[in-house]
């Protein structure tokens, strides 16, 4: 690399100039990167803790406030999650609230001073906006029943926002049309856990990273998507010479830099790989027969189950019992050679992986997120990876864990634990079970029979119903559906049809506010009091630290005001005597309006759902006083590892291990086949398209693209191509291309040799960029069991434009 010659004098001038420019404001500045003690110069701020607003890792940040604004953050040294550091997104938290186009007033689409679907968004008062929203919800319910009024939230709702939403929708409106973007994000993880263990969420914790000898990534680019967890893997690799990382992936990515081996596989073939490893485990005598006999049963479900592509698609699995010999026969066809044929993974690599899983001396963590979850057989692949840990007994002990990671700060705490899905109720309960409904109606003080017993629409079907006109009222909070749905053209067009009423609560204008009839300005993160739950069952709280700008209000406040207008204010009529707002407490907008400590009232009611059956949460104050606690919290003690005696209070003495989520206390080893995806490259559409994220940007980029240093680090979504494919297309990096599927197309620039290089025959496009709506190209196929969309594979063609 040629060095540009620069004299020392010039260099110092440059450096001096830059730093001087920053000091021009007059205040004490420590922005000079040459100053190693910069952090120590942050005097005079008020500091408090809050979990990071971004991914599901759940890092704790210390938030520095001055003059009512956040001006700095630090990694929280007292949190065992991140131990004093943050990733670059976490370090950008002081900027996410302060984009100059923050929404500060409600907006209503109007023409000639009246609401008009064809009108333009104009400012309005809260009363007018909320009255209109409530009137439209009533109109929808009157026209087509409660199911026609839909609420769509996310794993970015605080726990009490999700809980209030569930109570209002299911217990108040009597509508099960409640879904979350987490359906697109980790519902395969949920159904994988529910079908195997009968209980949601991982059994291990982040403590396991310190103990594992082999880390096997199943389609998870943790170096970019979970950087702090990847830093724990790195620490282990550097500290323990025997520790190894294997990166099983469809694209070559940054996680491979630390890996002993990067193993590329054809999309969807992870099913065959997992069965191939299981077959080798049995062949190699690596079966832990004692563990399997004591703690497992075998089961086989339906096959050839479809892809959820049709409106109104229905599927119900019908498991039948099986046994070890049937399992052995079932996986017998998955020889290393057959698996190599399907997956492209060399037989020797498959044997190497089987060697790791099978060696009793090697503690194995399998880790995954969207690669396995956004998968038309997402439930199956989750089941099949659990099989490997169950067959070897490498589960529920330090360093031996199958580990499903999450992408949103409260995908676990809010959507999964509260159960903000059409079929769910809090604490792993479901609306289809009369006892569960009765339990909820009891806690909510409702007349028996209030909660409807039939689920209505999963997230994809909800949007299809909006397009068809079965859903007429659609309200989204803390998410950006009109950028994040696959097969987006259909759904954006649906939202614009007459008679559809779209409400979007958000902090900034997005591709969703663009199609909204009403936009409600939201308070975010530390502008309200909150609670998130991360991917190690850790519930953590934060207090309000700043004011929301203008008239922005929290989603909780919005839901409670809407409830009053719908005649359901009584659902939230908590007593100020029982839940007084403490003195000197920076109460939230919701609490101030109610004159009650609403967050505490909701929490204490919510936690009644989980007590006594393995979902125990602690009293409210315990979370403000700690860096979070991992449930079940029994007698004030958190649970670091579930299902293992000595760690988990629910495992009776002498049993060693008990998978108590299932009746009989046993986990299920599933017989599941490889089945091909619904759309594969062909002559007309010869490339795979895989979508995902980049380190700098989070989801649709609403927050991170307003942070100057993150925007500049990765301004635009580009299309990553393999150099051989680029050569075949006569393409150079930086040339403009069009990527088209049967559903839509985008124009963007090709990048060759970027941080991601897909396998040959594949193009990778992140979805954060509002100017590159890659979801107009993707396919809305989903796993029939989890109903989670597969964003990782469809067929596209690439045309050179420049």
């Amino acid at each position, binding site marked *: 690399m040629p*060095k*540009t010659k*620069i004299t*020392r*004098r010039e*260099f110092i001038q440059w*450096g001096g100039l*830059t*730093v001087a420019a920053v000091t021009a*404001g007059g*205040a004490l500045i*420590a*922005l*000079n*990167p040459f100053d*190693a003690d*910069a952090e120590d110069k*942050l005097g005079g701020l008020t500091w408090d803790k809050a979990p990071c607003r971004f991914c599901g890792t759940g890092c704790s940040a210390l938030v520095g406030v001055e003059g009512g604004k956040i*001006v*700095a953050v*630090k990694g929280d040294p007292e949190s065992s999650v991140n*131990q*004093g*550091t*943050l990733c*670059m997104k976490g370090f950008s938290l002081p*900027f996410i609230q302060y*984009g*100059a*186009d923050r929404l500060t007033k409600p*907006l209503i689409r109007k023409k000639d001073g009246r609401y008009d679907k064809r009108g333009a*968004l*104009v400012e309005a008062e809260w009363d007018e906006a909320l009255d209109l929203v409530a009137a439209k919800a009533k109109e929808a319910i009157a026209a087509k029943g409660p199911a026609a009024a839909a609420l769509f939230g996310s794993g970015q709702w605080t726990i009490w926002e999700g809980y209030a939403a569930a109570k209002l929708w299911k217990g108040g409106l009597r509508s099960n049309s409640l879904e979350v973007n987490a359906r697109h994000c980790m519902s395969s993880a949920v159904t994988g856990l529910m079908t195997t263990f009968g209980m949601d969420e991982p059994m291990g914790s982040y403590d396991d990273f310190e103990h594992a000898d082999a880390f096997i990534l199943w389609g998870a680019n943790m*170096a970019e998507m979970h950087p702090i967890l*990847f*830093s724990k893997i*790195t*620490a282990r690799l*550097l500290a323990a010479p025997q520790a190894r990382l294997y990166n099983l992936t469809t694209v070559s990515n*940054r996680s491979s*830099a630390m890996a002993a081996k990067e193993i590329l596989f054809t999309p969807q073939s992870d099913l065959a790989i997992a069965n191939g490893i299981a077959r080798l485990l049995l062949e190699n005598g690596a079966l832990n027969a004692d563990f399997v006999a004591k703690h497992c049963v075998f089961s086989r479900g339906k096959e050839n189950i479809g892809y959820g592509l049709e409106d109104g698609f229905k599927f119900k699995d019908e498991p039948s019992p099986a046994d070890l010999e049937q399992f052995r026969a079932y996986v017998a066809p998955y020889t290393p050679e057959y698996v190599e044929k399907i997956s492209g993974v060399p037989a020797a690599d498959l044997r190497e992986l089987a060697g790791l899983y099978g060696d009793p001396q090697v503690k194995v963590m399998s880790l995954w997120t969207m690669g396995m979850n956004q998968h038309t057989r997402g439930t199956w692949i989750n089941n099949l990876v659990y099989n490997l840990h169950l067959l070897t007994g490498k589960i529920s002990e330090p360093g031996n864990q199958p580990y499903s990671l999450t992408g949103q700060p409260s995908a676990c705490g809010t959507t999964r634990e509260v159960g903000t899905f059409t079929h769910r109720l809090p604490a792993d309960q479901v609306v289809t079970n009369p006892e569960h409904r009765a339990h909820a109606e009891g806690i909510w003080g409702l007349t028996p029979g209030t909660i409807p017993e039939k689920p209505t629409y999963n997230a994809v079907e909800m949007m299809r119903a909006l397009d068809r006109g079965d859903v007429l009222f659609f309200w989204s909070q803390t998410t950006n559906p009109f950028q994040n749905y696959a097969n987006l053209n259909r759904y954006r067009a649906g939202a614009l049809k007459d008679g559809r009423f779209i409400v979007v609560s958000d902090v900034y*204008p997005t*591709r969703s*506010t*663009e199609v909204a009839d009403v936009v409600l300005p939201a308070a975010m993160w530390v502008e309200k009091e909150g609670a998130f739950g991360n991917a190690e069952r850790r519930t953590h709280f934060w207090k309000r630290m700043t004011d929301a700008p203008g008239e922005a209000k929290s989603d909780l406040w919005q839901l409670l005001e809407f409830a009053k207008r719908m005649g359901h204010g009584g659902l939230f009529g908590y007593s100020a005597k029982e839940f007084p707002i403490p003195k000197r407490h920076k109460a939230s907008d919701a609490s101030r309006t109610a004159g009650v400590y609403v967050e505490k009232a909701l929490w204490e009611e919510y936690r009644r759902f989980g007590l006594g059956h393995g979902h125990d949460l602690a009293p409210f104050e315990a979370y403000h006083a700690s860096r979070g606690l991992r449930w079940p919290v029994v007698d004030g003690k958190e649970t670091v590892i579930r299902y293992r005696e000595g760690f988990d209070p629910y495992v009776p003495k002498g049993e060693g291990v008990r998978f108590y989520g299932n009746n009989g206390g046993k986990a299920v080893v599933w017989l599941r086949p490889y089945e091909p995806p619904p759309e594969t490259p062909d002559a007309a559409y010869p490339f795979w398209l895989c979508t995902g994220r980049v380190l700098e940007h989070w989801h649709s980029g609403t927050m991170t693209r307003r942070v*100057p*240093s993150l925007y*500049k*680090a*990765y*301004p*635009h*979504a580009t299309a990553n191509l393999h150099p051989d494919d680029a050569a075949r297309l006569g393409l150079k990096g*930086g040339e*403009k291309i069009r990527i088209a599927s049967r559903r839509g197309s985008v124009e963007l*620039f090709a*990048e060759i040799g970027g941080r991601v290089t897909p396998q040959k025959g594949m193009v990778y496009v992140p979805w954060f*960029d*509002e*100017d590159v709506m890659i979801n107009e190209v993707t396919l809305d196929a989903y796993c029939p069991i989890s109903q989670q969309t597969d964003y990782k594979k469809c067929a596209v063609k690439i045309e050179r434009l420049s």
Partner: protein
Amino acid sequence: MKKFWLTCLALAAALGAAAAGKVFSGKGLQTGAPGMNRYTDQPPGSTAPLPRPYPGAPPLIPHSIDGLGVTRAANDCLTCHLEGGELGDGHRSAKIPPSHFTNPYTKETKSGEVTGTRYNCLQCHAPQAVGAVPPVPQEPRRSL
């Protein structure tokens, strides 16, 4: 720079219009066209430092990182930044702060050995694209 001020003007106009109770587009960060990310090809040691976003924020990378790698076997960033300071030919590099040498599990500090959880430099430090101007600026506020 011109583009930046035009963006500011457009934004001010949009905000002004909204403030006046008039029309609001509802559009966010759209510019109407895709873009390409281009980074400096200036090698380490040849560029001026970039100011941190705030005190304690991870410094941004002002030079090209092409060809530099962080693997289990070697971390090319440490070549210059482990000790920091003068590079001998008139260049100067930022020194890694003490926090990066303390093992968060054991609390032990080993000089000359960046602790594992801080080893992946790119988890916090990023180069900045050339000519990239955020479509929306930050609200002006007093910074430290």
